[in-house]
């Protein structure tokens, strides 16, 4: 019942109207389930005791005892409990899953609308995996929402039934029920806070160290260092194991507390009941059932630490401004003149950036593509890079990066990324320029071939050319190419350079090129040492 959670992300996790409707139905089911479970036990006890007393008092009493209503009620309650419990689970999970899908879409839109130059970096595997994990922990919050009203209803009904056996037992039970959530939350916080933190830290450290080692696998295998590195990992593993043991035992501690608390309630009601044996039996069983119905609260309390952790991390994303996603411009913008250092580069001209590896050529291209903030002395349309709007980069430049990143999906999906409304004919034409058309025609599924992780089944050089074709399809005034022909044999390279040259000429597209190979450099009319851009 902690209200300590930060307010923003709860807002973020607040489900949309249709989901809230499902949640309300789920809550109703939860209440029905909790009540029917409680009544089932209470009525059974009352019926049994009443029957025994009537049976013992002779025939007249037996005939006066109305057994039809309680026995029918017992059967009805049994069915009602089953159906409503199923409804509760189904509806609360459906609501939670739909809400999380909405949240993921919303977060994606939020992140997609950011400017890459200043956006939080979630491209690394760890960061994106954590984003998923954090959203999943929020799922818990929604699944458990209907259980609270259910528990509350059961507690109230328990007190009402106990009141039939006397006002004093009812008062005692009410007191115990009010204290329970606070007691169980405090206890689980006490038992889980430290081990939950230790487990998260140890797991984080183990993962980080292990990933380091997995990246150094070649050395470990070559020099037979497995035992040495496993010794290094022994310490975080031992800490993780100890923390997980403590957490697992904490669960048992909370469960044991709840069992004892339930017994205390039963004892209190039984010892103070004054309304006759039948109603005392009813009150006694109702008290046990009411405490049991509050179990949902202790389960929530046990998971609270994890949920709060997730909320806190998502909070940082929420500070991002929500803005509409940019629509594709209807008219392609006019080509802008560039100024690189002291060099003016007119629209449509072809220029190569020269320098040794590691001298910053790739960084300069990425700055032009709007992928990173840069203080380099570069002007687009007489505006320094830092002052250029995102739309400028998107309107002017199409990049084929050095590592040729490809989306998981089909070849066509990757080409379609370039701009809306690309036809298959246009794709084939672009692939022909990059000498990839024949290779793709040979694939059984052609353009619809699904690419695996790392672009398989395409080789490194083929991925490069697919990325190049995508940049061509964007039809922007400037093409930014980073080592476009790396990994190609001489003949293909010459052919690609020839076709690319023709394409540039026929479309009047400008080119900024980075390459250390002589053939592609022949495309450039001017060259510029990279020092002119990095020295500033």
């Amino acid at each position, binding site marked *: 019942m902690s209200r300590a959670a930060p307010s923003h992300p709860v807002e973020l996790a607040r489900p949309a109207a249709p989901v809230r409707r499902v949640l309300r139905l789920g809550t109703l089911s939860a209440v029905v389930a909790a009540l029917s479970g409680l009544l089932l036990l209470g009525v059974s006890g009352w019926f049994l005791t009443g029957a025994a007393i009537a049976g013992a008092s002779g025939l007249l009493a037996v005939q006066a005892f109305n057994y039809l209503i309680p026995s029918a009620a017992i059967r009805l309650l049994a069915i009602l409990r089953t159906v409503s419990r199923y409804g509760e689970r189904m509806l609360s999970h459906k609501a939670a899953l739909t809400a999380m899908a909405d949240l993921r879409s919303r977060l994606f839109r939020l992140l997609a609308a950011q400017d890459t130059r200043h956006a939080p970096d979630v491209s690394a595997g760890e960061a994106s995996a954590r984003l998923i994990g954090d959203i999943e922990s929020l799922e818990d919050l929604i699944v458990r929402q209907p259980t609270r009203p259910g528990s509350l209803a059961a507690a109230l009904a328990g007190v009402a039934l106990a009141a039939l056996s006397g006002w004093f037992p009812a008062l005692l039970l009410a007191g115990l029920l009010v204290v329970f959530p606070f007691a169980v939350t405090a206890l689980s916080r006490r038992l889980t806070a430290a081990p939950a933190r230790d487990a998260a830290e140890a797991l984080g450290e183990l993962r980080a160290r292990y990933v380091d080692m997995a990246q150094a696998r070649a050395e470990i295998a070559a020099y037979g260092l497995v035992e040495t590195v496993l010794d290094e990992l022994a310490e975080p593993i031992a800490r993780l194991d100890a923390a997980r043991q403590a957490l697992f035992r904490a669960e048992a501690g909370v469960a044991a507390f709840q069992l004892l608390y339930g017994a205390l309630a039963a004892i209190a009601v039984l010892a103070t009941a004054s309304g006759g044996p039948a109603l005392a039996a009813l009150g006694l069983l109702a008290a046990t059932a009411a405490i049991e119905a509050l179990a949902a609260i202790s389960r929530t309390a046990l998971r609270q630490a994890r949920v709060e952790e997730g909320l806190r991390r998502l909070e940082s994303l929420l500070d991002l401004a929500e803005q509409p996603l940019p629509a594709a411009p209807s008219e392609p913008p006019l080509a802008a003149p560039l100024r690189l250092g002291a060099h003016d580069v007119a629209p449509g001209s072809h220029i190569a950036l020269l320098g040794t590896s590691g001298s910053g050529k790739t960084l300069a291209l990425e700055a032009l593509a709007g992928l990173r903030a840069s203080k380099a002395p570069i002007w687009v349309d007489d505006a320094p890079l830092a002052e250029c709007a995102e739309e400028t980069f998107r309107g002017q430049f199409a990049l084929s990066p050095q590592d040729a990143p490809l989306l998981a999906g089909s070849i066509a999906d990757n080409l379609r*990324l370039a701009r809306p409304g690309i036809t298959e004919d246009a794709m084939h034409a672009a692939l022909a320029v990059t000498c990839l058309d024949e290779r793709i025609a040979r694939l059984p599924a052609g353009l619809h071939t699904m690419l695996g992780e790392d672009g398989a089944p395409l080789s490194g050089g083929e991925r490069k050319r697919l990325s190049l074709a995508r940049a061509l399809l964007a039809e922007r005034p400037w093409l930014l190419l980073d080592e476009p022909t790396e990994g190609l044999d001489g003949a293909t390279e010459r052919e690609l350079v020839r076709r690319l040259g023709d394409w540039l000429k026929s479309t009047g597209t400008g080119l900024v090129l980075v390459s250390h190979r002589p053939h592609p450099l022949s495309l450039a009319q001017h060259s510029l040492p990279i020092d002119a851009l990095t020295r500033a």
Partner: protein
Amino acid sequence: MKPKRAGQFWALDILGAALFSWGISGGVEALVAGTALSAWLACLAGGALLRASSVLLVHHFAMPGAQIGANLWRRAAMSRLLGGRLPAPVSAGTSAALAIDHVQAIEEHGARFQPARVSAVVGPLLAIGLIALASWFSALILLATLLPFVVGMIFAGTAARRASERQLDALAALSGLFVDRVRHLPLIRHFGAQARIARQVEDATHGVATRTVAVLRAAFLSSAVLEFFAAIAVALVAIYCGFALLGLLPFPPPEPLTLGRAFFALAMAPEVYLPMRRLAAAYHEKQMGEAAESALADFAPGQDEAEEASSTTSAAPSPFDGLVVDGLILTWPPVCIGPVDLRLPRTGIVALSGPSGSGKTSTLAAIAGQIEVPSGRITTFAGHPLDPADVAWAAQRPLLLPGTLRRNLALAAPEACDAAVLVAARRVGLGPLLEKRGGLDLVVDHKGSGLSGGERRRIGLARALLSGRPLLLCDEPTADLDAASAAQIVAVLQELARERALLVATHDETVRAIAQQEIAL
């Protein structure tokens, strides 16, 4: 203690429940008779204490037991993933998922499912036996409802499993899409495709939700079956007992029933089903644990020792007199690398070039004997198989372990004396670092804080030198270095090539310029 044995403590839970039920029935009888309650209240307290200690004991012993099992898996998986020969390269992320996340799923399976399984078999029968002591007819009713219940569970469980298996692949692909698109956000923004991809992501995430709901429906249905039978059983016992007490049974009473006995039977009836509900609650852990075990099947504990034993007997080592690679082809669908042919004499440099992702590192790993070779031969000039102990590896991002610089330099030759370590370190250009930062006692952490990329690279080279192995494989020795450091490294490589064989994977033209031969991938 094995997790299964820990599950036996759940029997204590049934005994506690019986004591508690006895307290309830005795208490109600005492109210009817107007006698003292205190002994029955003590039974209630005692029963609850027994139940509480049972849950504490199960949890106390189950987790350490499960961790012993999980640690065997972890050790086997880590040994193989970090140091064994693999059928195909494994990315660091996948490697961590296997060695850490999957092992955790196995641990959960051991700690939660195994004890629950033991109690699900023994628990119901024990509870029914105890009920039979009070009312054998009630016990019979419960036993009779238990049978259709078990059959129903098996059917519902099988249906649920089939449904979830069908959905798992689709689910993985769809959730993968979200991660993939989040990772490629810079690219998506660059092409102005945010709105289009956002719609795609929206469809995919809602698809995941709809499919998951379908999986859950099957699972919840099976637990609804469980609860329905439990509720019906309790209702039947209550009605039988009530009518028996009233003397209104439509058949001759099978047993003399008192209120106390009837109440005991009623209070114990839900306990018959509790162990199975516990088992159903651990069903998720069971599924995840079994999936993890099948993913880790190749790394089963005990398997790598057997493999090592077989590989050491394969060939007697012969002196290294040059490297011959003949028609080497690496395939793990859909990747295909090669064929690679090369001859590298006892001294000199051969460069292996090609863009990133073209398989340079994998080729080196295959030569070092770290990846299985489906086709082609890797031998010495004399035609003997290459001994992996002749191969040194200078990594792009060398391994650093916490400790001194001395420890890190001498990882591959722990017995080397300080003088030898210093000579190797100076040879690769670590002299300035040694002078500035306190010599070999410089403290290094596993992140290499305070060391530049170039210095790390040199530590890897010095380590390879110290190992004294005649064949040196270098992975991208100059990548991401500034021009001056790169030039120094190239000079070191050139010098080393006068006394040993260097195979260098690189796409740097300055390195390729000093090679006697270049193999393009």
